């Protein structure tokens, strides 16, 4: 039982990172039906930016007290802004011109952008894994049978806070309303006086900023990164978005946590589990899609003509 609970904690903290990335996938897909393959690399870019900022602040080890709060806040905000700007730039340069092109064109462009980002990051820090300073002290608390570390709490809490903030943003602000309208019917939204291009830009800004949060958190949690980190994480996060119902914020969150949990449980309870965990994850995805083609929380979208 204690092992089971410990794996729940492991799974939730892994899932928290997937969930944060999945939010960006699902937002962009929801609004322009583009699978933004570059999103995983924006996430890695978030880790790289955080690393650069920490280096700039002269932080190379654990920090304590108010300085810790300041360092975390500065790095987090800077990573969000940089990644958000990167997302906006990608949309402006790569996707906007292809808005009315056949759907395959932006998809392939997304893969191209992903390659560009990966190569830029490889030039930046080389092809090897790079250490990320252990900023956050990591005491672990033993709650009954399981031990939970400070970093795991940080990951899960940040994921939840970001999701709630995003949900409030989308349902309680004017620009959120514009996003929902654009997602539903772009032309109608435009006719109603919504600036569609600005709305899509905001979507990229917010989604990429969340990837920046995920990037910072993963650096802190794993203490290392490398230029190709976003590939696997991006794929899993995309799966999470599909599992939960692509286009659905709560679904992406649920999918992320579920995939983290399934991975941890598969590792524990399937013989040779570490090598089969991905198989289990994707089998679950296939099963869910057979019985619920639009994902767990997905709504069946009206067929677009």
């Amino acid at each position, binding site marked *: 039982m204690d*092992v089971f609970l410990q794996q729940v904690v492991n*799974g939730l903290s892994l899932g928290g990172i997937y969930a944060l990335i999945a939010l960006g996938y699902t937002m962009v897909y929801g609004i322009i039906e583009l699978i933004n393959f570059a999103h995983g690399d924006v996430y890695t870019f978030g880790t790289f930016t955080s690393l650069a900022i920490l280096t700039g602040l002269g932080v190379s080890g654990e920090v304590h007290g108010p300085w810790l709060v300041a360092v975390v806040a500065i790095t987090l905000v800077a990573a969000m802004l940089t990644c958000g700007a990167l997302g906006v730039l990608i949309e402006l340069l790569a996707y906007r011109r292809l808005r009315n092109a056949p759907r395959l064109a932006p998809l392939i462009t997304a893969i191209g952008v992903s390659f560009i980002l990966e190569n830029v990051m490889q030039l930046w820090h080389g092809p*090897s*894994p790079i*250490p990320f300073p252990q900023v956050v002290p*990591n005491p672990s608390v033993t709650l009954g049978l399981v*031990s939970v570390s400070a970093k795991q709490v940080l990951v899960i809490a940040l994921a939840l806070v970001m999701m709630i903030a995003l949900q409030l943003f989308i349902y309680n602000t004017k620009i959120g309303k514009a996003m929902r309208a654009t997602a539903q019917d772009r032309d109608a939204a435009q006719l109603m006086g919504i600036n569609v291009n600005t709305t899509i830009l905001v979507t990229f800004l917010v989604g990429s900023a969340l990837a920046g949060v995920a990037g910072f958190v993963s650096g802190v949690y794993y203490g290392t990164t490398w230029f190709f980190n976003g590939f696997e994480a991006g794929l899993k996060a995309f799966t999470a978005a599909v599992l939960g119902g692509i286009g659905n914020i709560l679904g992406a969150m649920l999918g992320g946590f579920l995939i983290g949990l399934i991975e*941890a449980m598969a*590792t524990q309870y399937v013989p040779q589990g570490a090598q089969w965990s991905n198989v289990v994850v994707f089998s679950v995805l296939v099963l869910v899609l057979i019985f619920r083609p639009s994902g767990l929380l997905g709504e069946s979208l009206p067929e677009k003509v």
Partner: protein
Amino acid sequence: MLAVEQANAKGVPGGYSFVAYDLDDAVQGAHDPAQGAQNVKQFVSDDAVLAMVGPFNSSVAQAQIPITNDAGLVQISPATTNPGLTKGDEAAKLRTSHPDVNSFFRVCTTDDKQGAAGASFARKLGLKKAFIVDDNETYGKGLADVFEQQFAAAGGTVLGHEHLTKGQTDYKALLTKAHALGPDLVFYGGTTVTGGALLRKQMADTGLGQVAFIGGDGISDTEFLTSAGQSADGVYYTVAAPETSKLPTATAFVAAYEKRWKSPVGPYSANAYAATNIEIAAIEKAMAEKGGALPTRADVLANVAATKGFASPIGTIGFDKNGDTTAPILSVYKISGGKPVFVEQIVLKV
């Protein structure tokens, strides 16, 4: 080069002399199999070339072996450790023109022997319960499989053997599983990039921080030290080569090398020296058999293959039927204070 100079200084019968003919397989600083193959073709087309030393990397060897096999030109590699170059189906596939003739030999040992050395060292430390993790690649899995077998044979208990998935970065679930089994050792077969550093780092987060960690030379790089950070301390790893500076048989060579080149010996200098000397001895023996006439490549090859009990700086060398050395010496290092420190040599019996 040093071996060639020494041999010429001693004098070669019949007025011949040895010439070192250097070609580099590196293109823009990285070894390149295509360039390696090109170089060997150049050797093959030159009738005066009777034997070659090299290459350094297994991937280059893969490109070269079919060519030397076709030409019957003997090559001895100082440093390629991929088992498939000499053993099993993989090696058979490389011998394209003459499947029954082996032209490729090596004075270094092979990766799979590292698993055996790791197992013998772990038992020496008194470790009993091992949890094995590998990266599911040829090198890592080979290492881990041999370790599993040898560790059990030496009286240890193997609690589990898991394979990592490429690209995975979170091993906490796996390590939690391992922790529940109560190992006193985690053996890792793989490289730093395929998970070594992260695995070691996350051991501390999952209550395995005080458990021993042994790996192969896939983690003997600076990336492991920087990525694993403080948790790298206490890690042991094996290297499929002797530590030349600690070998009593190598003192004369080390002195001669440093005098000639005014720089300390490299990790594979002694190996290359031994390989060259074996070839020189084989050529001289072949000449003696022919009454001083220049031998053919086939004569030299036969004499290299028959090498037995050859005294060299890296021990007494002989070749088995695959072309592998019969006296593998490996070394164990321990990371301490962020630096690798030599622990001991392990001589395996074959």
